[in-house]
């Protein structure tokens, strides 16, 4: 029996494409009038367009190559990423008091974004190599835990609490997804609860104030609570259908800082309202559900864990970013996949979508063989 080989998963590609269109339209508004000019397109916008173009190329490149190749590369990539982060900590470009960027001459990128990807690969590799069907115990999880903790601790050092938390959550999700024994699960829970107060102790002053601000933004509405309140105002003032495209006063008059990066969703919410938000969330839901389907029907364990990891990393950033913009989560610097301004972020997510497509395609290729 010969089945028609689908070239691409349009159930995944279409929502991604639509999301990119929404993103470009929205970024145009968010970057407009920056640098004090009332009119005129920001150079940032063109820069991001370029990144989308590079990302699209990368998406198709990764879709066409066999994802199993990555399995062999995973440890090398992981090691290289760890090295890059260390270099960044020593001599990286500083922005907002954190060393996150590494300059490569013509452009700078964030190794921590790369670390998420590398972690997905090594974990998928590990759980592929060590497949235990009736649940992992603490002993068999020692290696993945170390794999998670190394980049986690390094990125905390940068400091980039948001990405570090994402790393931790991605790792935890994959471990739980792979299946752990109940006793091990409970052990993790107890360990987590005991470490939590320690975490508070090691947090930087500004990270603590952010948490305090999240609990009570009105305590310091101009300082730590400012982002939260202004974002809440931006989102809320959008009401049902928004104030209108390019008319959002919160972002255009700079009341909402970081509106093109971390708070990009607030710009959308202000200008397009509840209706626009639901559309974007629906697009994300399509991508996530399709990602899970790809994971489930992947040809091998590596593909299963990798597709799940990619999907869950998109989900985590999606949920945490929107949760932060709407004030149900504290402010942590996490981008909204595809929507936020940022080259590395867009490129990595496009690559990951490419890999999902690759996993989807290979499944049928196997059957043919």
């Amino acid at each position: 029996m010969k089945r028609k080989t689908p070239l691409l998963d349009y159930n995944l590609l279409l929502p991604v494409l639509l999301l990119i269109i929404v993103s470009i339209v929205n970024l145009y508004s968010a970057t407009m009038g920056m640098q004090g000019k009332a009119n005129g397109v920001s150079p940032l916008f063109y820069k991001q367009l370029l990144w989308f173009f590079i990302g699209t190329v990368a998406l198709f490149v990764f879709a066409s190559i066999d994802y199993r190749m990555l399995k062999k590369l995973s440890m090398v990539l992981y090691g290289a990423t760890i090295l890059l982060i260390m270099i960044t900590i020593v001599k990286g470009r500083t922005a907002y008091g954190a060393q996150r960027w590494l300059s490569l001459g013509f452009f700078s990128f964030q190794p921590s974004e790369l670390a998420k990807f590398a972690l997905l690969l090594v974990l998928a590799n590990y759980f592929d190599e060590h497949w235990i069907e009736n649940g992992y115990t603490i002993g068999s999880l020692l290696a993945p835990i170390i794999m998670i903790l190394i980049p986690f601790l390094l990125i905390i050092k940068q400091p980039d609490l948001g990405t570090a938390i994402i790393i931790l959550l991605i790792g935890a999700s994959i471990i739980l997804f792979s299946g752990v024994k109940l006793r091990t699960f409970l052990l993790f829970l107890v360990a987590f609860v005991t470490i939590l107060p320690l975490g508070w102790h090691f947090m930087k002053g500004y990270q603590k104030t952010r948490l305090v601000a999240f609990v009570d933004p009105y305590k310091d509405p101009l300082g730590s609570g400012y982002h939260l309140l202004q974002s809440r105002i931006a989102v809320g003032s959008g009401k049902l259908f928004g104030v209108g495209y390019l008319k959002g006063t919160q972002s255009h008059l700079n009341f909402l800082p970081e509106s093109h990066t971390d708070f990009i969703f607030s710009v959308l919410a202000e200008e397009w309202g509840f209706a626009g938000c639901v559309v974007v969330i629906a697009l994300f839901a399509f991508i996530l559900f399709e990602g899970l389907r790809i994971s489930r029907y992947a040809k091998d364990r590596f593909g299963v864990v990798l597709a799940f990891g990619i999907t869950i990393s998109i989900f985590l950033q999606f949920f945490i970013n929107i949760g932060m913009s709407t004030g149900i989560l504290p402010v942590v610097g996490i981008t909204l996949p595809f929507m936020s301004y940022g080259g590395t972020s867009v490129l990595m997510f496009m690559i990951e979508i490419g890999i999902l497509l690759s996993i989807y395609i290979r499944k049928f290729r196997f059957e043919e063989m």
Partner: protein
Amino acid sequence: MHDEFHVYDPESPSIQHAYRRVLLILSLFIVVLIVRLWYLQIFMGSQLEFYSQNNHLRRIDIIAPRGNIYDRYGSLLAGNSVSYSLYITPPEFRSAETGTVADIINMPVRNIDDKLSSWDGFSYTPVLIDPYLSWEQVSRILAEKPFLPGISVQWQTKRLYAQGTGMSHILGYVREISDRELERMNTPEQEHYVSGDFVGKYGIEKMYDHALRGKDGAIVKLVDATGKEIKTYTYIDPVQGTSLTLTIDAKLQDYTAGLMESYVGCAVAMDPSTGSILAMVSKPSYDINDFSSRLTPDQWNKVLDDPFHPLENKCIQGVFAPGSTYKPVLAIAGLNEHVVTPATTIFDPGYFILGNRVFHDWKKGGHGIVNMHKALVQSCDTYFYRLGTLLGVDTIAKYARLLGFGRATGIDLPSEQAGLVPTSQWKEQTFHEPWYPGDTPPIAIGQGYDLVTPLQLLVAYAAIANGGDIMRPHLLFYPTATTSDYVVSKLGISMKILDVVRQGLLGVVNEPGGTAPGARIKDIEVAGKTGTAQVIKESAFKNVQESKIPEIYRDNAWFVAFAPFAGPRIAVVVLVEHGGHGGFASAPIARNMIDFYLHGDKLP
């Protein structure tokens, strides 16, 4: 090749179960986001939209100039000038700079913090910190402004009075509205006042605040997050309040103020036929231009601690024993009740005995044979002790009320007092004691429980002068009003009776033995009555010469008068507190006022 990778069955129940669980968890989180967005955008949407608009639209009120106030001849009494106010825009202001600002404007840090505490946490609307900047303060702020973000200076119109002290009690003053006033003045039907408004606090400014205050304008500006103005959105012109003309004759007012300058007391002049107030002076006074600026605690305390109450308009807020100026009330009552006739005479030995009590006349040895005319001219106490006893307290009260005592005259000034007309019932209620016969003789000479305001006396005498009309004294000049609009009531006393009293009053000034020869004017017939009211019943000073008694124990000196006798055009009351005898202290002041008003510039 297949062995390199582990293959598993995606349709197995355990795998299916695992994915269902993940799907459920993701869906739950997505629902949480949508519910949250619904809450913010649909449920809270309107409120957050309001905050958003408040974020970028900044409204700066332009205080409307108040209406001008003129005297009856059109000379300006109250106008407007420019003042400078300090504002702070809280989101831009660094709280560490509070000390610097406090230092410049000379205001405690605590007060600034108090004003800033009203901020809602969002608004870019500037908060008024100090509406009374001096020129030096303005220039210091402008110099330091680059280092003080969020600070701004606004100019606006400010009340300026032509004279600082001469008309304080009439005009009143304007200051920032207090919280208590905000509560009281904003009725549910019309909420006109907002925090930071300037309102009349006293006098005409308070009485006619609604007319005098204009409609404030505003500039609405579009600003960005740094407070930088992008453009002016709307400009609403302020509308000046209605200008008022008073019945005051500014020249007479000035002249009277000059006459009263060194005294504690008050003087009022009124047109007896219309009730128009021509002059009203209360001393000591205070500077209303000072009151329109920030008062230092010292300035406040000086005014508050002054034992002679400069803030009080004694003409309407002070209540005093009327002394002998009350005697015409008894005269009218006696004649109208047919208790006496003009011809009825008594012999005055210098005292009056009632039961076992002796009431002395002011003149040792007495006035001899006295009829009503002589009793008025010489202010014979014995005659009126006797007449009062014959009338009884409640009949006296009836005529006192008829003449306007015991109730506010209705002048258009705030805080007017009603005085007191004692009755037997009143004493019963107040002291739970019956009215004793011995209580009546003192009230017959205005020395008992009776209390009057100077303006009440003036209104009563004006009624005698004008033939029986109790007028409502007023300060606001209505060009269209007729005299009858101001008639409160008619005495209903026959002209014959009033003539007897009037002749008596004429005699007081013009006949030998009259008590007020000092009020005589060469070519004008002045009629009037003196009064000398004891301040305290102090026997220690009984035989001491008046000038040697400490001032605050000296008697209050009254003089009430009207002129010209044939057709009165001016009625005057003068009270010099602790001035001693009315004829000496007050009569010359009243005389000069009348002379000035009737002769005007022809005076030498």
